[in-house]
Every structure is written in structure tokens, then in C-alpha cells.
């Protein structure tokens, strides 16, 4: 696995190199600016699997660099881990919204860094398998055979919709928030009605397109400046937002549904596929009882999932 580390502080880079070597990651390149990183990435034969980016750098900062890396087709899914001293919420949120998969605070613990990069390595392997699977799907499609390549409960990563994170990235985002930040947040879930039925009737590509359209309608319909959305499987989405006064906004669902109706999801043969959404209650934890930050995901989810399918994907224990 090949890593590219970018930090304007050479001391920080040297410590990072030592930590990476101790974790067995010896194939890495380190540069001190975003411009240098882009120069390397634009070379035809340059290839990296994981990116480690500092945020605060002169010139192109880490968040802008993350966006530019994401815009390169071959790095669209490559894990980006921010390694930074910036702990304010807008930096954390900006990093994940730009496509970061994880966020490690400086001063970093070398063992924790190794664990985080290990998670990134697993994603690289999953992406490789997914690419192989897509090739197989394409081959079967061309021969007229349909295959399912994800399950109804899988939290498929919705790509190409701004502010929509993978489920894992959303978990990592929430785990970086302080108790005070959690107390300043609220979350709400949406679910596609009769998703099981829809899933059984549509192809994986059609389902993915419907999920992507729905995510787009949710992101646009929330009309908030700071919100992040993830798809959780079973036709359910969760949006995490900054708390605002007047949180019980009955118009949210109406707005999101109207946008979705305007997008007009359809099957691949062009026939319409009307999608109806329901919305759960807004979950707004109090700062002093905020507890497990992942409850910002799991509590709203339970409000839209029935008893039959209220399993939450990858539910992670937090001490």
C-alpha cells in the first residue's frame, strides 16, 4: 500500500514517517505543500492508495487539497485521513464534507495512527474487490444476466452528492466531536417507504440511482448551512445538523419530498419510480447527557425503522 503524506511542518512529517514505519507502512512519500502533492499526483505514473493530509498549510490547505484529490477519477474513493491540530468543528465538518474518511488529531498517538491506517487499508481492499465486482457485473450485464451486488441492509456509499458521507466516515465524524459539539447538534432520519418491495423489483444500478436522487433531495431540502447526510441501509438516511431554534420544522419533509418528486426517480427503461419518504422525529441530545456520539445516528434511525428491520449497520461500541 502506497501513502502520500502532506504537511508543511517537516518535524511533523518526520514523526509521521517514524510512526508509519513502526506500523509496517514503509512505502510512503512525504511532501510539504499541497502544490507539491498535486504536481506528483498529476504525473501519469504516480499512484497512491491512501492520503494523509494536514489541514492548516500555506497556499492550498488540506481541505482544498482533499477536494482536488477527490475530483481525480482514480482517487474518487481513495481513503483520505486528515492529521491535524485543528479541533474546531468547522474544520472537522469541512474535512468530512470534502471527502475525508477519518480525522486524527495532533499530537497523534503512533499506535492509534497505525489502527486508523489499518482501517484505511481495509477500505482500499474493499474498493479493489468492489471494482472487480463491478467489472463482473458489467460483464454479466453485457451477456443479459442481472446480479445483485449489495444487500437491502447494506449502507452503500453514495458518491457524487456533496455533503453525503459513507456510513463509516459519518461514524468517524461523530467520534471526533466533543460532548459540547454533540450537545449543539441534532439529527433526523428519513426512510423510503416500502423499500423492501422496491429493492426486490429494481436492479442494483436502479436502486443506487434512486438512493442518490433521494440523498440529493435531502441535502437540498434541509436548507441548513451545516449538515452532513449518510445512507444507512434499508432505505434509511440520517442527516446530522447544527442545532437551531425552532427545530420542529414540519415543512422539512414536505420540502424534501417536493424536491424528490421534481427529480422524478425512474427505472433504467425510463418508466417512473415514484418514491415516498417518511421522516422520524428530530433527535437533539442535551450536552450534559450527550454520551455516545453515535446515538446521533442510531436513535433517529430507530424512529424510522420498523421492529423487523431495526438492525443498525456496523454499530460501534464507544467507551
Amino acid at each position, binding site marked *: 500500500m502506497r501513502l502520500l503524506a502532506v504537511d508543511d511542518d517537516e*518535524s511533523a512529517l*518526520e*514523526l509521521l*514517517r517514524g510512526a508509519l*514505519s513502526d506500523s509496517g507502512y514503509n512505502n*510512503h512519500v512525504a*511532501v510539504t505543500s499541497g502544490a507539491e502533492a498535486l504536481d*506528483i499526483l498529476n504525473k501519469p505514473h504516480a499512484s497512491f492508495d491512501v492520503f494523509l493530509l494536514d489541514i492548516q498549510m500555506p497556499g492550498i490547505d488540506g481541505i482544498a487539497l482533499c477536494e482536488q484529490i477527490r475530483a481525480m477519477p482514480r482517487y474518487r474513493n481513495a481513503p483520505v485521513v486528515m492529521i491535524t*491540530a485543528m479541533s474546531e468543528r468547522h474544520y472537522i465538518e469541512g474535512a468530512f464534507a470534502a471527502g475525508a474518511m477519518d480525522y486524527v488529531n495532533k499530537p497523534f498517538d503512533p499506535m492509534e495512527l497505525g489502527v486508523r491506517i489499518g482501517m484505511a487499508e481495509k477500505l482500499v481492499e474493499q474498493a479493489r474487490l468492489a471494482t472487480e465486482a463491478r467489472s463482473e457485473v458489467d460483464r454479466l450485464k453485457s451477456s443479459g444476466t442481472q446480479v445483485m451486488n449489495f444487500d437491502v441492509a447494506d449502507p452503500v456509499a453514495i458518491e457524487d452528492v456533496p455533503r453525503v458521507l459513507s456510513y463509516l466516515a459519518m461514524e468517524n465524524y461523530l467520534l471526533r466531536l466533543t460532548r459540547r459539539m454533540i450537545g449543539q447538534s441534532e439529527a433526523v432520519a428519513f426512510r423510503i417507504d416500502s423499500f423492501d418491495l422496491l429493492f426486490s423489483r429494481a436492479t442494483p444500478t436502479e436502486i443506487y440511482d434512486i438512493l442518490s436522487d433521494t440523498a440529493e433531495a435531502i441535502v437540498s431540502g434541509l436548507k441548513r448551512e451545516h449538515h452532513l447526510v449518510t445512507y444507512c441501509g434499508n432505505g434509511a438516511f440520517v442527516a446530522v445538523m447544527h442545532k437551531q431554534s425552532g427545530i420542529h420544522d414540519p415543512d422539512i419533509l414536505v420540502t424534501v419530498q417536493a424536491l424528490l418528486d421534481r427529480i422524478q426517480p425512474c427505472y433504467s427503461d425510463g418508466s417512473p419510480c415514484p418514491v415516498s419518504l417518511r421522516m422520524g422525529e428530530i433527535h437533539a441530545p442535551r450536552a450534559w447527557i450527550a454520551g455516545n456520539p453515535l446515538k446521533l445516528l442510531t436513535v433517529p434511525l430507530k424512529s424510522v425503522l420498523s421492529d423487523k428491520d431495526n438492525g443498525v449497520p456496523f454499530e460501534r461500541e464507544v467507551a
Partner: protein
Amino acid sequence: MQNAAASTEKHGDAFAQSVAAVRTRFLATLDERGAELDVLMELADAGEDPNACFKRAAGIVHKISGVAQTLGFPELGQLAATAEQLMTAAVAPGASKSDFATATRSVDDVVLAIEAAIA
């Protein structure tokens, strides 16, 4: 700088070796960084483009806060992180003279911690 890796250090030793090497260089530059912080605060007090002085000082303490704890200076790292936050707030729109004074004092604390680290 570009360092194609291919590290040959024995597994487990590389980070300790990095810390030792960086610590030596860090200590060698601390005195200079402390002096620069002092000059910048004096210039800011004298009204010499205080925002530019604070931004430059914030850049210095940012680099200190990123590595100081790892190198065995946790208090210096914490004070530098606090000073960076306060200086950022002091140059933000709507900041008051009191924000400015608080940020300046936080930089003084960093300079004192630097002096203690190199004593």
C-alpha cells in the same frame, strides 16, 4: 522535500528514532521561535499591523502545538494550542480589545514555557 520511503529501521524503533532526532532540532529552534514571538507581540502592541503579527505568531505556535507533546513537552504543547485558538479568535471579525489582550497574554505564557523547556 520529497522522501520516497523505503525505511530500513528495525520495526518498532523508527518512531523512537524520529522523536529523538526531531526533539534535538526542536530544542535548537525553540529559543529563536520564542524570540520571534516576543518581537511579534511587541510590534502588535505598538500597532504595527497587529493582524499580520498575530497571524505570523499563530503559525509559529501552530507548529509547536503539533509536535511538542509528542516530543515530551505536554504543557508547552497545550499552551501553544490555546494561544493559537485565542489568536485566531482575536483576528476574527467582531473581536474586541479584550480578545486581543487575552491572546497576547497567552503568547506570553508560551514564551515562558519555551524558556522553561530550554533551561
